[in-house]
């Protein structure tokens, strides 16, 4: 790890200003940044600590659920309101990382975690467009079992690793931020960008822009929601494929649905075709299975990760089944 200076920000404006240069990085829980600095993938000159300037509160009111950007993953997952109103969020967080990491990891940091692409994380691999724009993509010639099948480009096929973000996407959450010119709200689906020709850009956030909180609106689907994650070992592993689903049922008919996918997309992925195929249909296994078939439409696979197409169809069907059966 290269040496750097450390600034515990005292004011939000100070954090925004000092976080702006390309050579600065924010730190919250640190579980991503310290890891990547140790790998020499991140080499900031200044690390700006956000712990003194953001909230860790978890609040429930008319608007819905507000999570301070510093709310720790553990605290959100075990929060009584979260478990009651949005089980998918609690389940997604608990399906990720380990208890120790979840105790450190924050809401903002989790959303902004970076890909686990092994070529991205190995600073000695010369070709990685995300790490070094224009250098090529080692994964395209490499081993891609963990890589994305949805939203990929010729420049990058790295999967977004967050479980929590997938649940928040299925819950129509929005990210509130602060930047030099003021505050703004970004729907979660718009936060992350597609790699296209610029895989080094991962979100719409500007340099120095800080996530201050995440708001999850009240929803008729919230309580009937669940998260299903399939991985290479039973626990403490990133998703091969996962689904966050939320359903609104009325007398056996699906009135509205949200389906989001993890482990398969370059960003948390909304399965819009599946949602459309659910609405207005009877809440039955046949409906779920037919709709799940549409979840990966548009997929572009490699020989290593083509298995994710049938796997994801089954993951989505089973998650829908589970949500449909919730009391």
């Amino acid at each position: 790890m290269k040496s750097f200076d450390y600034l515990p920000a005292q004011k939000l404006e100070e954090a925004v200003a000092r976080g702006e240069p390309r050579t600065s990085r924010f730190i919250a829980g640190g579980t991503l940044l310290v890891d990547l600095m140790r790998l020499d993938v991140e080499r900031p000159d200044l690390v700006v600590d956000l712990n003194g300037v953001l909230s860790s509160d978890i609040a429930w009111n008319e608007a819905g659920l507000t999570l301070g950007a510093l709310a720790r993953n553990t605290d959100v997952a075990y929060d009584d309101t979260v478990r009651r109103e949005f089980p998918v969020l609690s389940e997604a967080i608990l399906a990720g990382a380990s208890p120790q990491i979840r105790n450190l990891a924050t809401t903002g940091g989790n959303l902004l975690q970076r890909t686990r692409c092994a070529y991205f994380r190995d600073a000695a691999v010369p070709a990685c467009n995300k790490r070094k724009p224009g250098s090529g993509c080692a994964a395209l010639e490499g081993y891609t079992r963990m890589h994305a099948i949805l939203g990929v480009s010729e420049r990058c096929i790295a999967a977004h690793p967050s479980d929590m973000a997938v649940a928040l996407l299925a819950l129509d959450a929005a990210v509130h931020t602060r930047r030099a010119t003021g505050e703004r709200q970004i729907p979660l689906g718009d936060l992350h960008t597609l790699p296209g020709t610029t895989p080094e850009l991962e979100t719409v956030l500007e340099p120095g822009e800080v996530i201050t909180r995440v708001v999850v609106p009240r929803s008729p689907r919230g309580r009937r929601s669940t998260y299903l994650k399939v991985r290479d070992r039973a626990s403490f592993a990133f998703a091969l494929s996962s689904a966050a689903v939320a359903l609104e049922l009325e007398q056996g008919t699906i009135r509205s649905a949200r389906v989001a996918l993890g482990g398969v997309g370059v960003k948390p992925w909304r399965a819009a075709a599946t949602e459309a195929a659910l609405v207005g249909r009877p809440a039955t296994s046949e409906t779920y299975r037919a709709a799940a078939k549409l979840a990966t439409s548009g997929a572009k696979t490699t020989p290593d990760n083509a298995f994710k197409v049938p796997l994801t169809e089954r993951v989505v069907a089973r998650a829908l089944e589970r949500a449909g059966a919730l009391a």
Partner: protein
Amino acid sequence: MDLPHQRAGYAFCLAPAMFHVQTDALAAAWRAWLCGVGAPAVLIVAADGEWGTPDRRLLDGIRGELRALGAALVVVTEGRSFCFRPDVDRDEPVPERLATGAGMRALHGLYGVEAAAQVPFTLTLLDEHGAVRAQTSARAEGGLHATLLATLRSAVENTRADERVLFSRREVVLSSLTAALALSFAASCRPHAKPPSPGAPPAASTPSTAREILVTLVVNGETHQLELEPRVSLLDALRERLALTGTKKGCDHGQCGACTVLLDARRVNACLILAVMAQNKPITTIEGLSHGENLHPLQAAFVKEDALQCGYCTPGQIMSAAGLLREKRAHTDDEVRELMSGNICRCGAYVNIVRAIRSVQESGVPT
């Protein structure tokens, strides 16, 4: 094994006539020993007394840069010779028959060194096969330790791995170190503009350790004030500055749990935390878990249930279990397994680990 001269096209060296063909047993033994070190190494051959007792800050800086490079340091003086690696608890002695200054110099072609009193030490860069990659005889103005730190630091600053097309991280590190040695050699060749007048403050040639800041850690009930660079992890601060080596380093990436401690009564990975960010919050390590000679119930249960084999993961397992007991969220074997999944045991002692934790839960003893 390639002999140094066979790799000459690859190596670049700064002192003249560097490569000797040495085929004798000593050379073979030396290279075999370096292969055992298994990392690029900076070899220092210094006149007696030159290494001495380095200033704590310089030593910390050297340790930090070696860690950043993944490199080792081998120091050979007539008095004392050792190999230092940042993540190995104790310095390893260089085998006696290898560690003679004269032998070293002959081996690595450093002739004339003995005679030239104004060159009190040489820095040699060896790759993990023991081949010489670069060499410089520095007439260090700031002294050996400062020169070494400056050299290593410049190598780290310039290790932009992704800007070079090389096979491996080791090659990247070796090439950065080669460049840094060249720089330090060039610096040592600069003529003195003016000899420093006696009594004048020492020249600003000491590399900056200005990044060190005062950090207050509250560990096992004791408050410690340490001067640390911000990049120092809580794990390294505990092990290297507070000598609390019960907390282990397994992966250094949050993946194994060997470094688990309680921070503010919650279990966390000490390797993922910057020490500066753990200030003024109570930290409990395995050393603080027992009450004097009385083992904590978890420790006793691990012994009783034989919940370990090699024991390397055990402090982390126990600290993680201590966190799990406080959380009160695991009520079945399966829940214990799931909530202990952040702790990996290479020996596979899992069955008895779960049994030990369950036995403490069932005994109802306060923990």
